């Protein structure tokens, strides 16, 4: 399995697509963090809770890109027909899918770390100018861990979504529209109908709760629901691919 995982990482590293996404991630995260810091009051910026929330808000881009790259890691193989060679090397298909799930998970962690570094690089000089500092304590560390886990689950979820949908444009556009539009509208509708409990367990709501910028579920519950989504999509993807004809 480590060989397959290393192969997945190599696949990712050896195309230019990844680097484009990394640039987008750095730029968007930097702009987002700068926006939040500049619109906050001086006393807010020194507040530990503000600092943690600012990190949560700034890493939404890392989470979204983890989802997209997770999807792409699978759909690109169907799009270019390389899934044929992949399954020739590893005919036990579940092993390929498992490697892609783990790859998506690790990818999420890596992207979130990059997002956190950029966000901290933006806020640190401002705090220093304020003669304040970043409150690195237990709560801070816990929040960082939650942010990393949330992005990791987004990446793994992407691998499952890509395996299930396979059509690259359909999967990518569908995922973006769901996350940015459909889920928001659906949640508003559910809340209006008095079913906020259901809105809270929608995927973005649950994972945002885990990452600390959505009020609905507790962190632990958000994480549990997020894991459930990853497992369900991975299982559906496996069922789709298990006996699929690769032609």
């Amino acid at each position: 399995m480590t060989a397959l995982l290393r192969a997945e990482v190599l696949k990712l590293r050896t195309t230019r697509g990844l680097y484009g996404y990394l640039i987008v991630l750095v730029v968007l995260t930097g702009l987002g963090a700068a926006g939040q810091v500049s619109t906050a009051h001086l006393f807010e910026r020194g507040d530990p809770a503000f600092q943690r929330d600012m990190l949560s808000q700034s890493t939404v881009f890392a989470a979204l890109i983890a989802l997209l790259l997770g999807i792409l890691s699978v759909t690109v193989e169907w799009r270019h027909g390389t899934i044929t060679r992949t399954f020739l090397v590893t005919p036990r298909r579940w092993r390929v899918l498992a490697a892609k799930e783990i790859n998506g998970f690790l990818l999420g962690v890596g992207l979130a770390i990059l997002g956190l570094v950029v966000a901290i690089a933006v806020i640190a000089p401002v705090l220093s100018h304020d003669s304040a500092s970043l409150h690195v304590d237990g709560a801070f560390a816990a929040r960082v861990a939650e942010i990393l886990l949330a992005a990791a689950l987004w990446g793994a979820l992407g691998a499952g979504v890509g395996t299930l949908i396979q059509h690259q444009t359909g999967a990518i556009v569908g995922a973006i529209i769901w996350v940015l539009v459909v889920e928001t509208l659906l949640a508003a509708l559910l809340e209006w109908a008095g079913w906020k409990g259901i809105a809270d367990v929608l995927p973005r709501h649950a994972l945002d709760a885990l990452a600390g910028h959505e009020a609905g579920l507790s962190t632990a519950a958000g994480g549990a629901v997020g894991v459930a989504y990853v497992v369900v999509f991975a299982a559906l993807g496996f069922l789709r691919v298990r006996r699929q004809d690769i032609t």
Partner: protein
Amino acid sequence: MIEVESLTKRFGATLAVDDLSFSVSPGTVTGFLGPNGAGKSTTLRAILGLVIPDAGRTRVLGKSYAELGHPFQQVGAILETAEAHPGRSGRNHLRVLATAAGVSRARVDDVLELVGMTEAAGRRVKSYSLGMRQRLALAGALLGDPETLVLDEPANGLDPQGIRWLRDFLRMLAGEGRTVLVSSHVLAEVAQTVDHVVIIHKGRLVRQAAMREMEAMAAGAAVVRSPDAARFASLLNEAGIDAQSMGDGELSVAAPTARVGELAAANGVVLHELTAARATLEDVFLELTGDEAQ
């Protein structure tokens, strides 16, 4: 060793492979022939575990493909799909495969050298010509140094130079004692390389034969012109040889020229012409695969 047993595969309403059975002996090069759409690719993909049969089964080296311990080191394959991500370099593509299959990186450079792609290996695959892509695919198939090779239309899209290179290459592989199953819709492409042929049409087996038999089928016919054509035709018929009048004293005879000449001399028949009407292998192939291929 490749075995196909009662393989049947349907895609929607289309019966792609229909109760097909044949086997490929170790150390032989077998041509897998049939017109386009005969079910060749589906059969090869079933052998490689990519297509799930509706009925029957396929085995490689005595096992189903998925049960092979190290499939990449046991069976190499070229299929009619893109080999690599267009944005990846040829070398990196092979490195990905080597990493996943547990093959050493040094072997990547070896196979690049073997197929003559060392210089182009650093370029992205999208810049490759069709011939280079086929070479890269062959490099991918040989990366694990497998004993058995399954090649689906490897000559497709190659220029004459590329086809010649491929032919020499296949002969080299055969010379090393590898088992090769190579598909084609053009018999001439593989005729000089293969020992056996498996011919299918509309998903069914038409014939499995040694190449020698195919050549014998192509060899035995003669054209005769004689002022005494009618009498000679009946003499030939008496000898159990089929002879048909083509008009104007010309006969088409289903026997080698030597035999026809001997009969003419023995019976004192004057011949104005005796030529071998050598049906090409292609003619035999077309005859066997019937209407659709013509």
